[in-house]
């Protein structure tokens, strides 16, 4: 029981150190720094220029669909890297599995295309 837990003790120490580091730094800064806020200082930082408009903008909902599709096919690429590295040892079996994965995603791509998710208007 004791043996099983001990390898994780360094992790515990790391967590404690990480938390302590943050807390202590903030605490010291809070004790040492002067406190003199004024309105320009509190305004959102925009490279020294006066803010042009409020930060909350209305975005077109179209971006949402584009982002979703991008995420999907980006993740596909992530899955392909480990397979590409192990291409030889995995052999035909790996190739077929990956082909199935790509085919399923391809169906999704055709579906998105047919449904007009790639059109802007």
């Amino acid at each position, binding site marked *: 029981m004791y043996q099983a837990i001990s390898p994780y003790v360094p992790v515990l120490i790391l967590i404690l150190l990480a938390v302590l580091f943050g807390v202590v730094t903030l605490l010291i800064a809070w004790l040492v720094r002067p406190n003199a806020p004024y309105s320009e200082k509190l305004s959102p930082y925009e490279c020294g220029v006066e803010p042009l408009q409020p930060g909350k903008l209305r975005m077109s909902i179209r971006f949402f669909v584009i982002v979703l599709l991008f995420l999907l096919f980006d993740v596909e690429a992530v899955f392909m890297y480990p397979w590409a590295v192990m291409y030889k*040892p995995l052999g035909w079996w790996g190739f077929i599995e990956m082909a199935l994965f790509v085919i399923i995603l391809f169906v999704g791509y055709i*579906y998105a295309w047919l449904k007009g998710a790639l059109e802007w208007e």
Partner: protein
Amino acid sequence: MSNFLAGIQFPDITAIIPEVIALIIGCLILLIDPFIPKQKKRLNGYIALFGFVVLFFVTLSYLGKSIVTFFDMFSVDNFSTSMKLFFFVANFVVVLISLRYLEMEDSNLGEYYALLMFATVGMMVMVSSKDLIMFYIGLETMAIPLYVLAGFIRMNERSAESALKYLLMGVFVSGIFLYGIALTYGATGSTKLVDIVRFTYINGVNPILFVAIILIACGLGLEIAMVPFHFWAPDVYEGAPTSVTAFISVVPKVAAIAALLRVYFEGFTFFAPYWQTVLWLLSALTMIIGNVTAVVQDNVKRMLAYSSVAHAGYMLMGILSFNELGVSSLVYYFFAYSFMNIGAFALVIYLRRKNIVGDRLEDFRGLAQKDPIAALVMVVFLLSLAGVPPTVGFVGKFLIFSAALKAGFYWLLVIAVVTSVISLYYYFKIARSMYLEEPVADEPLLQPLSVKIAIFLLAILTVVFGVYPTPIMNLADLSAKVFFGY
């Protein structure tokens, strides 16, 4: 570099043919849906109906086979096969009642049937898996389509609300489930049920696993809608499209209970007294709160939601009995519950007409005069839900109660019987409204044919298998033999 692959065996692909077929049908519906003109969208539904029939017969040929493959993660046995058969029967009826309903709600899209198919694939994986990670993947594959289905009437505020509530609860609870898996892995060094049981056999009881057992019950408890996690059920059931409610209240619930049963029976076998105590408490609370709260509801969908919470309590009794009769009675109860509960929701769909959802108690007022056959059929379903002979509900309850009796849970049995009596009151509130009150003059009933077929099919099944339960009992006995009696 390649020697770590040397020990890997080629998995037995034949084990997952039903899953692959379901997946292909789902993708096919997605692909041909854009080419179908708007008036003929029903074709998608017919493809799904045909798909479930094909899947039923393909899976039927697996009955009696026993395959464990994919590195001990996936198993085809009589239990998982009969669960899959159950999914196809229930989904067939759900598609049947959806056909006309979606047109009425003006959201007749092919995606509905594709999502139904994908959720079914998730559930099939869930009941077949012998590994906690596989359970989780199946659970998520099932849950994500369900969130979308709950919000399927896009322009309806309540539908969107119910989808969001379902999503938030589901995500939260699946986090808990994952934590349970992590603790199990931390304590035993494996997520495979075989390895967990082996580890606990050699090393004895580990207190971390007590926590893991509770967390896994919590994680599956959302779909089961058992008591600490039942709050989403009434809101989601009320807001979601009625056909989806009929689906959510039956099929995912059964899948989650079947998964819980397998995890506890095959993974945590040596913890039986412990999880029996946990489930005892949960089952008692689920029955009491579900049945008592249902009494004060005046919306039929909400009432049926609480009644389905209560039925989850009865089904948990089947797990905690931990004997052969418990499993076989549970499998029987799954079928019984699907006939009567989908039937009751189908009646709500039957009452759907212009501007009337059909889920208020007033909508049932005087139905016996307007449509005597529909009223009679509804009474059959209500009798069955309350557990009155000669219906499937009676046989199911009788079997489950005798399993609990055999295991010696006398007080739980007392609670179950008392709450069943309470349930008679609120079921008969609907019956009284139909027979003893005068009808209000409003829109005439539409009486769509596909819903009629579904309702009569379910009513016939409810009565026939109540009088002659042998065919389902044989299937149930076969699946119980997976866990007991070699």
